């Protein structure tokens, strides 16, 4: 065993156990409550707006490296695609990450198939644009298509401000979400709705209510309570000059 990682392993095992227990519990009882996330509720409004105005939506992924945020954003893309296909709106999906380009294509295609409209799927609406050049292209897309709504999700860097403000300049409603805390102020300042950090990861469960996702969210919340409790105990012990908790966690 690598030194200093026993406590992390214990945490991980506990996390997995809670995930499965909570998932099974939901399957049995069907009871689960999650607070409202206005940014996710607004997705339906955005699609409705796009349909009424006859103008397209744009879903743009962050240009940062592919990681967990990207997967969480793909989940949201799946939901948006289904709504778009259902209400005959149009959606431009732009990804600066080549790895997820085929996934975006599949997600969009299967959304149309699911709604019984495979003929409406147009792969030209899914674009891969390399990271740096995507900025100019996305700004051009917003201007040319006069998009009615823009969804900005994923691992964002400085382009957060550029895209959010450019969307606002063409009168588009904006929903954004990232776990990059250094970009959150820009999204909060410039977008109509922002999913902050963990809200992005809770999006899947919010939209699908699938047992395994509910289990994962419950485990996440339990871990958060444990982290806060450990911090409080640690602070109290440190105030009395004791570092026993730190030593345990370092194992």
């Amino acid at each position, binding site marked *: 065993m690598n030194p200093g*990682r026993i406590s992390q392993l214990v945490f991980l095992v506990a996390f997995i156990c809670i995930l499965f227990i909570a998932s099974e519990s939901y399957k049995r009882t069907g009871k689960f409550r999650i607070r409202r996330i206005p940014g996710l509720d607004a997705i339906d409004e955005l699609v409705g707006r796009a349909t009424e105005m006859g103008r397209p939506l744009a879903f743009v992924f962050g240009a940062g490296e592919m990681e*967990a945020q990207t997967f969480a954003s793909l989940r949201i893309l799946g939901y948006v695609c289904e709504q778009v296909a259902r209400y005959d709106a149009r959606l431009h999906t732009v990804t600066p990450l080549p790895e997820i380009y085929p996934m975006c294509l599949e997600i969009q*295609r299967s959304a149309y198939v699911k709604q019984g409209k495979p003929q409406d799927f147009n792969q030209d609406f899914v674009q891969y644009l390399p990271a740096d050049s995507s900025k100019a292209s996305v700004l051009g897309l917003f201007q040319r298509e006069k998009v009615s709504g823009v969804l900005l999700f994923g691992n964002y860097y400085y382009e957060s401000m*550029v895209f959010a*403000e450019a969307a606002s300049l063409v009168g588009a409603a904006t929903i954004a979400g990232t776990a990059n805390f250094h970009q959150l102020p820009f999204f909060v300042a410039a977008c109509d709705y922002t999913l902050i*950090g*963990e809200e*992005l*990861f809770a999006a899947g469960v919010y939209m699908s209510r699938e047992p395994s996702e509910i289990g994962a969210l419950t485990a996440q919340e339990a871990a958060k309570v444990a982290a806060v409790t450990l911090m409080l105990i640690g602070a109290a012990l440190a105030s009395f000059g004791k570092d026993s908790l730190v030593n345990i966690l370092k194992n």
Partner: protein
Amino acid sequence: MKKEGPILIGFLTGSIVITSYFLKSTGLKSISDTVVRWRLIIAAFALALGALNMVRLHGKNIHHKGRNWQYSVVFLVFFLPYLAIGLIRGSNSAQYQYVWKSLYQPASATMYSMTLFYMTNAVWRAFRIRNLHAGILMFTGAAVMLGQIGIGTAISPLIPRFSSWLLDTVNTAGIRAITIGGSLGIVSLGLRVILGLERSYMSDGGN
């Protein structure tokens, strides 16, 4: 198999990487590093697919004389020879580097510098005092900005101290809360992918 294949690959690769993190084994670490390197190879394939899509899209636009098709011509005129130079001469060649330094880098820097204008515009909208939250945002934003520049100290030496307190105490507390929440979200999603419970990346959510 279309469904089980990706789940199995996700489980195996994820398990190897996680196990190598916890266990002290040089062999396992070497396998884990190889698995991580595979990601780059897969990304390279995806990059080719993405580039092909761009050529297809612009080629189609030119063929159908679509909207702004002239820009598609410009794209292909630059893209194809540059690709050829990269493939034949390599990315360290003088020709490749010339285009990179004289076209790409200035254009990229221009895009980056435009952030300032967008930021100013966003600040103009965000700092309008429409409610209590916007008022607090305006007040703290102004205090932090004044604390960072000389004029803030000239007005009152308390301003930089207040600005530092906002950044070190209030701001740091907020950032840590977001970081902890976000990190747990990453752990949760990562585990779901490894355990095969997260299938959103597959066609029809893996159903």
